[in-house]
């Protein structure tokens, strides 16, 4: 596993993401609900791929790459979600 990689801090707890799945949105497209599900999926795969690093020693480097890139993608979508939450005026 790369020593240089700093895992982006998670901006949302599981409970906050769960609330966002249910929250009624002023935006008719229901993007907050969908975006929270996307973030949840990325969090899920981030955790899953991190386990793969531990369990699959031969492929550890590849799984470490998958974990890092997923964490980066998760951080990007969390930023987008944060802007949307602010736009909607949600309190979580």
């Amino acid at each position, binding site marked *: 596993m790369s020593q240089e990689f700093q895992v982006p801090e998670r901006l949302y707890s599981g409970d*906050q993401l769960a*609330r966002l799945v*249910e929250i009624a949105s002023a935006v008719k497209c229901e993007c907050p609900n969908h975006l929270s599900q996307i973030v949840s999926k990325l969090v899920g795969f981030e955790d899953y791929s991190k386990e793969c690093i531990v369990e699959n020693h031969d492929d550890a480097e590849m799984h470490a790459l998958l974990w890092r890139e997923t964490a980066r993608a998760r951080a990007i979508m969390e930023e987008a979600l944060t802007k949307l939450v602010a736009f909607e005026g949600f309190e979580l």
Partner: protein
Amino acid sequence: MIKLALIGPHWKAQLDQNPHELRRIEVVSLSDDLDGFDRSALPHVVALDLDALGPQPSKEVEQLFSVLNVELMIIRYDYARREVLHSLQDPRIRLLQGSVSLASLKSQFMSLIVRDILNLGSDDRPSSEPSRRKDRACPRCGAPLISGTAAL
């Protein structure tokens, strides 16, 4: 009324956010894990996270079915190996991937809700009570028409 048990760390947050989504459903147990699950509540439906089943989910599920008269078990997971999912294949089990809204959860056992409505008759009155509304019947076959589905 359909009795539902929810097992997993985030169902409570969803319920707090959207308490009206599960109308016609009685949440009889709400816990983060299996240890907190109130088995004496005898739910018709159990919705739980795969992680709550521990390292041997199929054995845990078998144990739950043996002690509870559960009609449907809905297992939510994020990512899981195919062999694990395969071990959980059972007509009484539904596997759902990803975060699941309460509306999606409810849709999984809509048939049980409708059956419950039919058993009770309209407006939650026991079916043995006479209906206060004029009964409507199919004009072709004379069968009584269902009322109360608006409650869904």
